[in-house]
């Protein structure tokens, strides 16, 4: 009886605690830091935030090339943003070092940088300012499309980065609690089996 009551009370506490958690605004909770970087023309922009959506202010940013050599170092501003000119055309690994052991990184592949630089140069070319009907070869059309696609897709890419930093969902939380209780069941099962054996041995 004693044990049953103890379990009942424990379960009650857990139930109240989980209600408390679920009633709080869930996405704004977690504890992780993320960085997101993209190329625009010859500049790389980065955005850093904690997963609650809070900006990571004055956090250190390190940029490495593919060999792991540090190319430059900077600090995020008040919006959690930091931008820099492309130091070299190579794979760039951008590491965010927020205080208290929080760290995240984002890699921009060489191809993306090359493309962005190509697009920027093309934009500046005299051909693009002339009336479109005059002369557009295949190459130019391709570049124009890529250019506008880049621009149109940017918000979507950003949105994806935002969704990446969402907090854990209710399913995951309930799942985790389920796991813990499953483990409890397994532990109790083995313990009770051990006890039974002991009892049988005593009876013999």
């Amino acid at each position, binding site marked *: 009886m004693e*044990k049953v*009551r*103890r*379990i009942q*009370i*424990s*379960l009650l*506490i*857990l139930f109240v*605690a*989980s209600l*408390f*958690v679920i009633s*709080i605004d*869930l996405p*704004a*909770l*977690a*504890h*992780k*830091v993320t960085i997101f970087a993209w190329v625009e023309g010859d500049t790389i922009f980065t955005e850093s935030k*904690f*997963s*609650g959506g*809070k900006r990571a*202010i004055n956090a250190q940013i390190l940029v490495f090339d593919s060999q792991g050599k540090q190319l430059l170092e900077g600090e995020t501003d008040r919006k959690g943003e930091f931008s820099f000119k492309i130091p070299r055309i190579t794979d760039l690994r951008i590491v965010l070092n*927020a*205080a*208290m*052991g*929080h*760290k*995240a990184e984002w890699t921009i592949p060489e191809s993306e940088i090359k493309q962005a630089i190509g697009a920027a140069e093309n934009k500046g070319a005299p051909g693009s300012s002339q009336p479109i009907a005059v002369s557009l070869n295949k190459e130019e059309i391709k570049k124009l499309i890529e250019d506008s696609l880049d621009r149109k897709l940017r918000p979507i890419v950003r949105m994806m980065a935002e969704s990446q930093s969402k*907090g*854990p969902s209710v399913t*995951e*939380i309930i*799942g*985790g*609690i389920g*796991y*813990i*209780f499953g*483990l*409890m069941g397994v*532990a*109790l099962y083995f*313990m*009770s089996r051990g*006890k039974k054996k002991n009892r049988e041995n005593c009876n013999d």
Partner: protein
Amino acid sequence: MHISEGVMSAPVLITGAALAAAGISVGLKKMDSDKIPEVAVLSSVFFVASLIHVPIGPSSVHLIINGINGLLLGWLCFPSILVALTLQAILFQFGGITVLGVNTVNMALPGVICYYLFGRLVSRERRIVSLVAAFSCGFFAVLFSGILVALSLVFTEESFMPVAKLIVLAHMPVMIIEGIITLFCVAFLKRVKPELLGGIYGKGS
């Protein structure tokens, strides 16, 4: 308070893992079937507590609840917290698998320390003594955790004092909130289930 993966060097990780293993083996030895439901419940509480975000302070801080864990479980809070941290690492990507040992020690050791510091006082008859002890238990468990996190970060490039100050300051609201939560828990348990508080001493295990 969860340290991310890739921040710490191998020696720190290995030391953390070894300490955690020691703590867990002590915990498992003391565990019997009566205690398992309690361990599981407190593990779940710890698991969800990290999702309660405290909006005050310069950084992202959340509840930890290692004070209550330590107070009610003693050494058993090592296995309890390990399980919760493992699930947090897998499901939420808080912390990570390689830093599991260090994070477990950072959270569980303060719990055990507070259990020895305040456990006896909490189970005292006098209400005021026990409530003050309960508040201190919640408060200092978070404080010690902050200091341990700063200590484990010393061996990377950061220096101790500024980091420790930063962490402790950021967790000030959490310490106070956890102190109050622990206080209410103890007040509630004293009325409903006083054996839970003094139980470990009573059995002499």
